[in-house]
């Protein structure tokens, strides 16, 4: 993997959401010369840091100052990548400079030992995440649309609850994993889940219903190229992480990507 690809992958996975705050901290900050450091006991002050790891990684997170710039050191067996990301809001990190390091273990062992903060994320936090991490070409428009939908659902429903947070998280995770997709049309199902559609006429449709448990249901309409004028229509179920590998052979990227 090239460094650029590694950084992109890392950025995507950072953007993914789940929190691993205040966990597995060690004290290996001696080499950060220009950063104010703090003892491990300050770990509790990063209780809202949002990170996820699909594999064994070592991640160093440092808030340089009380502001929006954070440095993350991404350590893998293959080497070290230092990168500055504007990824965390002041609202998500408690005030005051701090630094710490934590290691994310294999196979989701973290999740079994400590509840994910993703469970506690609000729709507004996910929308903020969209506004700061998704492709520049549509992040503002998408965040605005999601805010509009959240408000609409809250107004429509007598209980005042909005969009399903888990459905929204899976939708954002999907977009992060597929940055070549253009911004979809988005609406909300009666069960408050996100429904995204990429369309180009009535015979080029690719829609995904993001269920809260990580499963998805998709619909594809596409031209039958061997029989002009006819349309192939199919639907199915999958999970967020494999849906593109399932549907791409149907040619959906011809109209769903930039």
């Amino acid at each position: 993997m090239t460094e650029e690809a590694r950084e992109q992958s890392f950025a995507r996975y950072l953007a993914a959401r789940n929190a691993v705050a205040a966990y597995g901290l060690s004290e290996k900050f001696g080499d950060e010369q220009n950063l104010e450091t703090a003892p491990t006991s300050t770990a509790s002050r990063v209780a809202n840091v949002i990170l996820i790891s699909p594999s064994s990684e070592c991640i160093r997170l440092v808030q340089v100052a009380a502001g929006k710039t954070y440095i993350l050191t991404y350590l893998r067996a293959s080497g070290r990548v230092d990168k500055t990301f504007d990824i965390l809001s002041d609202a998500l990190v408690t005030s005051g400079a701090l630094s710490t390091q934590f290691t994310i273990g294999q196979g989701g062992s973290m999740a079994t030992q400590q509840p994910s903060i993703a469970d506690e994320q609000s729709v507004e936090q996910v929308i903020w995440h969209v506004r700061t991490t998704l492709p520049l070409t549509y992040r503002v428009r998408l965040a605005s649309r999601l805010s509009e939908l959240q408000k609409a659902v809250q107004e429509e429903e007598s209980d005042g609850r909005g969009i399903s947070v888990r459905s929204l998280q899976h939708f954002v995770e999907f977009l992060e994993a597929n940055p070549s997709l253009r911004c979809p049309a988005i609406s909300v199902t009666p069960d408050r889940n996100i429904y995204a559609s990429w369309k180009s006429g009535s015979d080029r449709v690719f829609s995904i219903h993001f269920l809260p448990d990580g499963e998805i249901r998709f619909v594809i309409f596409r031209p039958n190229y061997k029989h002009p004028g006819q349309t192939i229509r199919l639907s199915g179920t999958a999970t967020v992480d494999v849906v593109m590998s399932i549907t791409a052979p149907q040619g959906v990227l011809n109209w769903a990507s930039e």
Partner: protein
Amino acid sequence: MKGQAIPDSDHVARYCRASTIEDGEILPTAFMLREADEYLSVNWLEELRRSDRASQIRDLQELYARKLRVGAKARIAILNIGIVRSKVERDSPDRWVLRVLHEPEPDDPSHSGIYDIPYDDEIVAELIAQVVLENHPARE
């Protein structure tokens, strides 16, 4: 009469929540069911016994204002029953056959239902969204 099949030549109106609308366009989610829903609620336009569409829409707007929390961007989709039924039967892979039945309620005599829309397959909602005849504001 409750349970009466509505003729294919007639029309129904579907209240479409604001969260199913984007830039004024009615999206397929407007025609999806919750798992517990037996049918998709609609109103039988001819049963309103009005002479023109504008009067029918006004009646519906008043009805929705009484029954629902009508969002500012909510819309009314007008569907022809025959077109919907034939579209879905012809183009859905499983040849879904929909029924549209009159389900009058005391405060909503034109209330009706589109039956047999699958809850767990969005393809029918996608097909219905493709045959919306008209699109009107849901509130005055």
